[in-house]
C-alpha cells in the first residue's frame, strides 16, 4: 500500500513536470518518467506483459521520436505569461470535470462486487487469447486505423516536397 502511494505520488509529480516545465525537452523526459512509473504500477497489478509493452512502445519508441522532433525543430523554451490561455482554461475545466467524475465514482462504487482474479491473470497466454478472440475485431480495426494514419502522413509529407 505504501509502495502504491509512493509510486502514485511520483507519477503525479512527473506528470505535472510535463505540463508545467517551460523547456520542452524536460517535458518530454517528464513524460518518459510518467509512462515508466505507470508501467511500475502495472507490475504491481500483476500485469507484467502490459508493463513491459508500455516501456518498449511508449518510453522506448514514441517519446524518443518526440525528443527527436523537438531536438530537430529546435523548439525554444516557452516564455511564461501571467495570463492563462483559452486552451489552458479549457484544460482546467476538463481537469475539474474529471476530478468530480472520479470522486462520484469512488463514492458510488460497491467494493463487495470485487472478484477473485482468474488463474494466470496478466500472463501472455491469457492476454493473447482474449485479444485474438473477444477483441479480434477492434484489434484489426485499430491496426487498420494506424495503417491509414501512416499512409496519410506519408502522402502529406510527399505533397509538400513537390510544391
Amino acid at each position, binding site marked *: 500500500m505504501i509502495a502504491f502511494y509512493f509510486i502514485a505520488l511520483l507519477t503525479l509529480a512527473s506528470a505535472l513536470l510535463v505540463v508545467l516545465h517551460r523547456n520542452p*525537452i524536460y517535458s518530454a*523526459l517528464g513524460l*518518459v518518467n510518467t509512462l*515508466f512509473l505507470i508501467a511500475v504500477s502495472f507490475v504491481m497489478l500483476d500485469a*507484467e*506483459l502490459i508493463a*513491459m*509493452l508500455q*516501456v*518498449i512502445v511508449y*518510453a*522506448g*519508441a514514441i517519446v*524518443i*521520436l518526440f*525528443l*527527436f522532433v523537438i*531536438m*530537430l525543430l529546435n523548439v525554444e523554451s516557452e516564455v511564461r505569461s501571467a495570463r492563462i490561455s483559452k486552451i489552458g482554461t479549457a484544460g482546467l475545466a476538463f481537469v475539474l470535470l474529471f476530478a468530480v467524475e472520479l470522486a462520484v465514482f469512488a463514492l458510488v462504487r460497491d467494493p463487495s462486487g470485487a472478484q477473485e482474479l482468474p488463474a494466470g491473470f496478466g*500472463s*501472455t497466454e491469457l492476454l493473447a487469447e482474449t485479444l485474438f478472440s473477444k477483441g479480434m475485431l477492434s484489434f484489426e480495426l485499430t491496426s487498420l486505423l494506424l495503417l491509414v494514419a501512416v499512409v496519410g502522413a506519408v502522402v502529406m509529407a510527399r505533397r509538400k516536397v513537390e510544391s
Partner: protein
Amino acid sequence: MDLLISFVLALVALLILLQLTVLLLWVERKGSALIQDRVGANRANLFGGLLPFNLGIVNTLMADPLKLFHKEDVIPKDADKFLHWLAPFIAVLPLFVTFAVVPFGDVLVIGDRVINLQAANVNVGLLFVLGMVSLGVYGVVIGGWASNSRYAFLGGVRGSAQMISYEIGMGLALVAVVLTYGTLDLQQIAREQGKLMWGVIPAWGVFYQPLALVLFFIAGIAESKRPPFDLPEAESELVAGFYTEYSGSKQSMFMMSDFIEVAIVAALVTTLFFGGWQVPYLQRDGFHFPGGFFVGVPSLVVTILQVVSFLVKLFIFCWLQILVRWTYPRMRYDQLMNLGWKRLLPIGLANVVVTAVLVLALEGFTIK
C-alpha cells in the same frame, strides 16, 4: 534465507557483468593489437618490468579504470548542467538490470533446496531485456542534447534514429524465436533447448532459427553502437559524437555502457540461439548420449559444467563482436538506414511468417 539467496544471485549476475566489462576493455585493446599486428597495451606492468613475464593483464585491468576516474570532470559552460550530469547514469543503469533475467545455469541443489540459477525469474524476461535496452537510448539522446555542442547534438540525433530503426529488426528476430519455443521466459527457453532434434542434434535456436540469429546479431551490434554501426560516435566525422563533451568518469560510463551492451548481446545470443547454459546431451543426472549411452555425473558437477558452458559461450560471442568491430569499416548513413529498413525488416517479417506457418502446420515441430 530466501532473501539471502536472491541477494547472492543478484550479486553473482552483477559481478559477471562488471568483471566481463572490465575484461572486455582489456581484450579489446589487446585484441585490436593482435588484429593490427601491434603489441598493444603493455606499459602498465608490475614492479617496473623486473618480472620475466608481463603482468599487463592484471595491471591494465586496474590502471585503465583508475586513470579514467581520476581525470578532471569538465562540464561545458553552456551545457544544461543537470541533464549533462544525468545522461551517463541513464545510459548505464537500465543496462545493469538486464543481466538479472539472464539464466547462467539450470539449478543448484544444496540439500533439499533447489535454487534456480537466475537473479530474477520474470515470466516476460525477453521483453524486459528489450525494454531496458530501449531505455538506454535516452542516455545517448540526452547526453548529445545537454552538451550544447554541434558534434554531440548530431551524434545524439543519429543515435536515436539508428537505435529505433534497429530495435524493429531485433524485435522481429526475437518474435520468431518466441514462436519456436512458445515462451518469453529466458530460463524456460534455455531449458527447452536441452531437448534433442531427431534424437541427435541439440534443439538449440541456431538450428531452428539460423536466419533469426543472423538478424539478431546484426541488429544487436547496431544497438550497441559499435563499428560498423558506430555512426552516433563516428570519430572521423563527429569527434566522439554524443559524448564529445564528456570527460573523466562520465565518459568512462558511456564507454562502459558500450561494453555492457556487448555483454548483453553475447548473453542473449548464447541464451536464445546456443542453448544458454546447456552442455550437449548433459541432463540433470548426467550425459545421455544418442544411442543409449549414459554417463552419470553428480549434481554439483553438472551445475558447474553448465555455468562454465554459459561463460565460455559468453566469451566466444563477446570475442566475435570484437572481431567484427576491428574488421569492418563504418557504414555510410544511407547504407545504415537501407540495411535496417529495406533488408532486416522484410527478411525478419518473412522469417516470422514462415515460422508461424511451420509451427501451425507441424504442431509436433515445436518442442512443447
